């Protein structure tokens, strides 16, 4: 504050024009400009142009907002988007319901083998995975305990595969019922709140091994396969290529675990 007047720079003149300057420096510049008609004219032009630009564009800020820029509406749309997976799944359930009446069970023959497995997986998704609050029986916090318990009930070692590299975090798992006894269900969720399940149960017959097969139930996509007599199905809403990739990853992980 007590130092002699600092030289006035180009930047000072801009800061003067834009009012980004403290009062003392402002005074110094005013004194400087009084003695420099050239600089004073330059600054006057800048100030006038600045004001003209503000005036010219002022209208844009005064127009009424179109509905697409209504923030409340955008927030609501966003919430609706996040709820969408549950709504989709409700439609799947409906599709399955129609399937029951219309053909799947025609002639009282239940689907068998891998198609039965896929169907159970889709039903489990529709019933459990869509529940926003309680999709699982045992949360991921008790991962070990859950794996131990499910392995015992299925009479076969099962553990939730790690899908975190693909953005899906394990929420937990539950015991589920199948025509062939106990089944294990693992539920995952990605950052957008989309859920994915892996459904595991022993197959009725032998120690068969199949290729990974695509399944489709309404809006749901996924894969099913059998490894050494144990059936696996991975189901989520949409994006089959990604689900196929994940299925391959799961199969590898299960095999690596022995």
């Amino acid at each position, binding site marked *: 504050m007590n130092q002699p007047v600092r030289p006035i720079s*180009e*930047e000072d003149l*801009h*800061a003067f*024009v*834009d009012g*980004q300057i403290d009062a003392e420096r402002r005074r110094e510049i005013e004194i400087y400009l009084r003695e420099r008609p050239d600089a004073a004219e*330059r600054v*006057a*032009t*800048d*100030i*006038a*142009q*600045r*004001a*003209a*630009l*503000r*005036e*010219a*564009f*002022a*209208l*844009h*800020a*005064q*127009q009424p*907002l*179109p509905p*697409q*820029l209504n*923030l409340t509406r*955008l*927030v609501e749309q*966003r919430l609706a988007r996040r709820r969408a997976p549950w709504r989709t799944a409700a439609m799947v359930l409906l599709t399955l319901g129609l399937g029951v009446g219309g053909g799947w069970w025609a002639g009282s023959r239940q689907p068998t083998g891998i198609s039965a497995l896929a169907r159970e997986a889709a039903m489990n998704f529709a019933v459990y995975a869509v529940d926003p609050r309680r999709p699982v029986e045992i949360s991921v916090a008790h991962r070990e305990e859950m794996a131990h318990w499910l392995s015992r009930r299925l009479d076969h070692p099962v553990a939730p595969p790690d899908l975190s590299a693909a953005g899906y975090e394990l929420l937990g798992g539950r015991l589920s019922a199948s025509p062939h006894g106990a089944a294990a269900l693992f539920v995952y969720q990605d950052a957008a709140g989309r859920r994915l399940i892996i459904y595991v149960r022993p197959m009725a017959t032998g120690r068969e091994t199949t290729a990974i097969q695509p399944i489709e139930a309404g809006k749901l996509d996924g894969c099913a396969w059998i490894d050494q007599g144990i059936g696996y199905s991975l189901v989520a809403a949409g994006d089959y290529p990604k689900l196929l990739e994940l299925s391959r990853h799961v199969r590898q992980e299960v095999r690596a675990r022995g």
Partner: protein
Amino acid sequence: MLPQIEACIPALRRYAAALLRSRQDADDLVHDCLVRALDKLHTRRDDGDIRAWLFAIMHNLFISQRRRSVVRPDSAPLGEQAEIFGVRADQESSLLYREVVRELNGLPEEQRQVILLVSVEDLSYTEVARVLGIPVGTVMSRLSRGRERLRRAAQEPVRSGLRRVK
């Protein structure tokens, strides 16, 4: 935090319209900006500097849209100013507005952005640097070069008009 964001929407529209020279494109850009801001809202710890944050989001969207699009706004014809500025046509100073806006539109985009953010949006030089992701020194040199050109352009026919506004 939503009220603070809402308060910035008019300014975002103004900047986008000046940048894109089309009201529709501008509102689309602002819309995308708001959606992105809502997505990223949870990453913010406080309310500080919401304005600069929103402008930065919009700037980044603008850049990535620009990269994707074949038609560069820079090379597009100036367009009819009457569409954007027609409302002022009956006013005495409309000639001056049109002149300055025309000159502004003739500037390289990097200078135009800095002038708009500084002169019209009242962002500080530091905020502009953050929004555009460039050093403050670069902000100042773009501002200098831009204003220099505007000034030169003003030195001819509308000189008296500029004086009057002041």
